[in-house]
């Protein structure tokens, strides 16, 4: 197969776009498309400060690489979660994140959950009894809380995450299977900042397939953590992704259509017959000051308070 732009041997074929590209043209195409999506969804402007949530994985490191190549002011944030499971998972992912930052002369903020709150993620999961034996629910909660806190406290204009189209399609698929209308309506490439203290959240990679981001990382020579998070094995998200990939193989473009048509339907206001649920008023958590749905401690602070009580027993 030949590159559509130069006729040389192609490195990747994207069936959904009927487009094959060589290494050189693919590495130009990805940042061009990212810039297009940043503008299309009005994610951020050139003079704004962006905080990239970096995990050491292919998506977040590629996102940081792309934003730096495009000339945006993008610093990184790494959250040390304390996941070991015999493979030094967090330690290795932090090493790779720091290595990338050092090699590209980029600034990386590191927040160690255990140093900040006295317990790491697996320990918090055991104490809080959230998530049926898996720490994923606690991990997600802590990440959302800490990413927002750091973005807000350090004055960043937007928090960028490396969610790709497969991530978005899997979430949408899961929420649709369960008809979780509030979650469905909230899903978007951009979540605007709120006066309640939520930072603007943006997903510049949300229209790239996971396969495309892997190809980008490989072709750019980005060293990323290849091993799956040990707690993610057998997760629902992975099951949904595999299911959608089988559909994609039979019907190229199915994932892209699923997600883009959803965004269109949401934009048109015709996604659900009933006019949509009014945004719930948020309250300020009396302990950390971040927005929360109930007029009391937020879920994260409740969990930490419980952990502190147990530590002193």
């Amino acid at each position, binding site marked *: 197969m030949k590159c559509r732009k130069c006729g040389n041997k192609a490195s*990747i*074929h994207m069936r959904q776009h009927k487009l*094959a590209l060589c290494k050189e043209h693919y590495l130009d195409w990805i940042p061009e498309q990212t810039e297009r999506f940043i503008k299309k969804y009005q994610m951020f402007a050139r003079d704004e400060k962006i905080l990239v949530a970096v995990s050491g994985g292919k998506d977040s490191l590629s996102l940081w690489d792309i934003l730096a190549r495009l000339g945006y002011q993008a610093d990184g944030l790494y959250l040390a979660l304390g996941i070991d499971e015999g493979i030094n998972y967090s330690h*290795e992912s932090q090493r790779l994140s720091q290595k990338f930052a050092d090699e590209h002369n980029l600034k990386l903020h590191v927040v160690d959950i255990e140093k900040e709150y006295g317990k790491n993620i697996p320990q918090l999961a055991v104490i809080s009894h959230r998530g049926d034996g898996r720490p994923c629910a606690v991990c997600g909660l802590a990440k959302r809380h800490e990413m927002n806190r750091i973005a807000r406290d350090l004055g960043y204009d937007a928090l960028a995450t490396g969610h790709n189209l497969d991530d978005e399609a899997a979430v949408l698929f899961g929420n649709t299977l369960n008809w979780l209308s509030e979650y469905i309506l909230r899903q978007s490439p951009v979540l605007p900042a709120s006066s309640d203290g939520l930072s603007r959240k943006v997903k510049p990679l949300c229209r790239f397939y*996971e396969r495309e981001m892997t190809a980008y990382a*490989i072709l750019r020579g980005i060293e990323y953590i290849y091993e799956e*998070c040990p707690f993610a094995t057998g997760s629902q998200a992975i099951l949904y*992704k*595999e299911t959608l990939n089988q559909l994609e*193989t039979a019907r190229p473009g199915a994932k892209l259509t699923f997600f883009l048509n959803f965004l269109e339907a949401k934009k048109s206001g015709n996604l659900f017959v009933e006019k949509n649920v009014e945004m719930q008023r948020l309250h300020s958590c009396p302990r950390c000051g971040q927005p929360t749905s109930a007029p009391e401690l937020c879920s994260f602070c409740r969990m930490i308070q419980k952990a502190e009580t147990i530590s002193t027993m």
Partner: protein
Amino acid sequence: MIAKLILRDKEYEVKPGMTLLDALKKINVTPESVIATRDGEMITDDEIVRSGDAIKLIAVISGGGA
């Protein structure tokens, strides 16, 4: 001589002469979920699998964060 497809710690043997796409279907690996490399170079799935090939498959799906 046969050809090998390698995914994580598993090796699959396939007959040379078919396309990579057909080889992936033969070993029940969803083509959308992997990137294939031969001698360190990424290859597209219309490539013919050759005798003696050791094609490395890189899984693309991730579901967590560090």
